[in-house]
């Protein structure tokens, strides 16, 4: 891999060599096949490394001279392999977390839909089973008393970008399959003018009946459903994006299905990205009157985004983190331009790739992610073990002390990171009352400028330290911060919260900080004072029994609730304080 190798010059003018110019005129050609010794190479590489390690123990200098560039190359390959593994470990973890989060968000809607499917299935079963003769004839069976109506679930995605919901509908398909339905998922591409009704039918048959079917004939589906006890299970067809379908093709398709509905009692689940009213623009009335529709709502992209940010960027303390600039870029791109989770996730993936590609020591991280399941921080010893395996460390015989101190600090970083994420989560709990999005809050707490401005005013910092016991006006403490920041908004809202809500908030904080001693202790001080208030107020309220059934706010007197509020605000201040959130910088 010498930089000035002549081969570049050769390849620069490919047309000069006869072999290449032949290939240039081919629509496609095989440049080369995989070298078969790849596996042997890898094993010898590892062998070499092991051998080298043994040798290096005796005389590191001579080994270097002997093996020279081959060692470099081996190291390089090993290192590359380590990077790929590290990226794989970290990204698989992030990806599966994202999937889990999205699945959890959709669970209740999915359950509702499944319930609906069952109800519809029972309703169609009431019509009664067809006789064999009726079921096997190759034309639709319709009785006049029961005009063909298709049970349809319109799933409002509340997101104009269909790309985020492709996965949702796939998951819905899997979910319904696991609940014992026959499920077909058709994309809007199938409902194009070019494909026509025949294309849709073929795709439908392909989905339900495995194996290649050339003829587009719905009677095949009817007889398949009739045979082999398939009719015990509901038939569900999912079309993921109504707006992208061609209206006329979809209309024909719906009319045809409704004619066959007695023999093929299929249920439609249609994704709608805009509003239900929009179905009227796409489908004519003759198709609409065949639909017996129900409505379901999915979560908004902003909700999904907050859940993902919480799970991936705040809670997961071992996998890779993003800095303020990257976070701000992602946020602005999401809010101002793109608005899709998909591109946010893709950008996160690119950031992850760049991290592993540019930071040499990041490979340790990958191992950590793989090894550390539930623990919040690894012991320095384990980390040292991983670092020892790094090729550079092996070759240079890094001084033990440096390695140890490095491992120590890495372990510390992880502990601090855990502290940080708890603090951010506590803030987010408070932010929910003022409707501040976690993504915004996340960007703000990463902003180093915010801390610099607070740093500069030491006097106020001291005041804050004592803020926990003082009953002074809390907004004075935030005078250094710009009043437009989200944290200020949160604090202002907390000050206005009724005591009942405040009480709830403190309870949630208690849960969040349960295993973090540093924060929990501070909260305890706050709690003890709250308990005092509680006792006082209960004594007071017991005097007046008629007031007992009043709202939760009533047990507190004005003075008490002001006290409670100032305690809560002091706690937030403690969270934002230099020692926790700032500790990462």
């Amino acid at each position, binding site marked *: *891999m010498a930089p000035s190798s002549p081969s570049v010059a050769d390849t620069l003018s490919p*047309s000069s060599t006869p072999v290449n110019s032949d290939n240039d005129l081919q629509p*496609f050609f095989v440049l080369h096949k995989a070298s078969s010794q790849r596996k042997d190479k890898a094993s010898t590489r590892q062998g070499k490394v092991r051998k080298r390690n043994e040798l290096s123990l005796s005389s590191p200098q001579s080994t270097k001279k002997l093996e020279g560039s081959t060692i470099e190359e081996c190291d390089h390959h090993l290192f590359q392999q380590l990077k*790929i593994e590290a990226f794989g470990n970290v990204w698989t973890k992030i990806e599966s977390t994202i999937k889990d989060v999205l699945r959890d968000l959709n669970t209740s809607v999915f359950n509702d839909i499944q319930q609906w499917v069952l109800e519809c299935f029972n309703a169609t079963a009431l019509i009664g089973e067809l006789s064999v003769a009726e079921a096997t004839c190759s034309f639709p069976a319709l009785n006049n008393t029961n005009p063909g109506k298709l049970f349809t679930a319109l799933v409002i995605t509340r997101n104009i970008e269909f790309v985020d919901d492709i996965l949702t509908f796939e998951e819905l398909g899997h979910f319904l399959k696991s609940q014992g339905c026959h499920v077909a998922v058709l994309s809007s591409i199938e409902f194009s003018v070019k494909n026509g009704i025949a294309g849709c039918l073929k795709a439908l048959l392909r989905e339900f009946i495995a194996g290649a079917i050339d003829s587009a004939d719905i009677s095949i589906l009817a007889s398949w459903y009739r045979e082999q006890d398939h009719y015990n299970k509901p038939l569900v067809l999912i079309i993921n994006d109504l707006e992208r379908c061609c209206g006329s093709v979809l209309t024909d398709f719906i009319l045809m299905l409704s004619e066959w509905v007695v023999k093929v009692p299929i249920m439609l689940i249609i994704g709608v990205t805009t509003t239900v009213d929009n179905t009227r623009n796409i489908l004519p009335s003759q198709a609409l009157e065949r639909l017996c529709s129900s409505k379901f709502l999915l979560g908004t992209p902003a909700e999904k985004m907050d859940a993902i940010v919480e799970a991936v960027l705040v809670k997961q303390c071992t996998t890779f983190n993003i800095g303020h600039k990257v976070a701000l870029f992602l946020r602005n791109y999401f809010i101002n331009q793109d608005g899709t989770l998909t591109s946010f996730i893709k950008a996160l993936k690119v950031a992850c790739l760049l991290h592993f590609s540019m930071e040499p020591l990041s490979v340790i991280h990958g191992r950590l992610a793989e090894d550390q399941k539930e623990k919040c921080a690894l012991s320095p010893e384990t980390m040292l073990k991983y670092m020892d395996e790094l090729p550079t460390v092996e070759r240079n015989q890094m001084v033990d002390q440096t390695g140890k101190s490095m491992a120590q600090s890495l372990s510390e970083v992880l502990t601090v990171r855990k502290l940080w994420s708890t603090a951010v989560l506590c803030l987010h709990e408070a932010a929910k009352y003022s409707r501040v999005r976690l993504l915004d809050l996340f960007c703000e707490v990463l902003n180093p400028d915010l801390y610099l401005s607070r740093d500069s005013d030491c006097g106020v910092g001291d005041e804050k330290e004592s803020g926990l016991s003082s009953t002074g006006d809390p907004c004075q403490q935030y005078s250094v911060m710009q009043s437009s920041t989200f944290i200020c908004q949160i604090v202002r809202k907390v000050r206005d919260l009724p005591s009942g809500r405040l009480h709830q908030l403190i309870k949630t904080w208690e849960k969040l900080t349960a295993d973090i001693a540093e924060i929990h202790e501070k909260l305890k001080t706050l709690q003890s004072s709250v308990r005092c208030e509680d006792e006082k107020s209960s004594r007071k309220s017991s005097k007046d029994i008629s007031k007992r059934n009043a709202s939760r706010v009533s047990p507190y007197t004005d003075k008490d609730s002001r006290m409670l509020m100032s305690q809560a605000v002091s706690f937030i201040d403690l969270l934002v304080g230099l020692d926790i959130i700032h500790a990462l910088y």
Partner: protein
Amino acid sequence: MDMEDDDMEEEEFEFSRDYFLAKESGSSRKKSTHKLTDIDLVDEQELREAVSQIEPKHQNEILTLIDSYRKFYPEWLLALRCGFGLLMYGFGSKKAMIEDFASTALTEYSVLVINGYLHTINLKQVLIALAEILLDQVKTRRKVSSRDLPKSQQPLNSQSIEDLLSFLDEVETENNCFVCVIIHNIDGPGLRDSETQNYLARLAACTHICVVASVDHVNAPLFWDKHNVHTQFKWCWYHVPTFAPYKVEGTFYPPILAHGGANQNVKTATIVLQSLTPNAQSVFKVLAEHQLSHPDDGGMETNDLYSACREHFLVSSQVTLNSHLTEFKDHELVKIKRHSDGQDCLYIPLAADALRKVLSEIS
């Protein structure tokens, strides 16, 4: 006040007079019979010769620049191995550089190259080739071949594109086994329709396929929707201007400065016609002779052509004639014009001289 009003009126009058004068002179200019195509340009052959004699400039700098990209090869390989597709953009031919990357850094994997700058690319053939490569690898790696053969043991040639794609996606093999597809000019003329791009996106999303592509058109990203870009191609964009001449890529574009007219058209028409069956050639002759003898007609009606061809025993049915016509239309030898009476007329888009030349060449 009156004076002012008069002035205003006069001004307006002048303005409107100027306007109509300008309009008149404009329309008189429009009547000119000169056409852009009448400009006498250089013959293509001559132009190509001249182009080939241009001394390339800054060769050393270009070489150094391309050479400097070599240090990024490990980074690109990492991106590729991490599941991204590489999309190279920037001025200059990137063909040589990408192929150099493949033969330096991707030796462990099989590499298939698609030349997107060509006009006809059969995607199904590409998929068959890919499936064959992957099957070979599975066989050699695991020494078990029977279980992994595509569905129902069909030969690859007879499978549909859907089947091939699902085979490429589902074939069981070890994780490390990839086939890399290099697509030069993914925005090239042969790959420019949305169906092909969709198939390419699905190909890129297959588990054992990774894609390296280059784009040159500024609007190339308009081919893809967000699903294509983020979840199928998973592009990582790399700006790699090479400033190398588009020698190979440009071969198949007629030079703008060359005389696009007669000579070139005669040549291509002759080549196409010579590759067709004698019967098809004769059908073309019938149409051409009609066009030469009736220069003022809009063309020949399909029915007239059919009866003329039947008289000469060239076709036995409308179906055979239609198949010939489709062939002609595909190669732009014949075009359809709607006549004023609503009938579709066939005509050959060549000037009379050129047409005579073509006829003399093929007979």
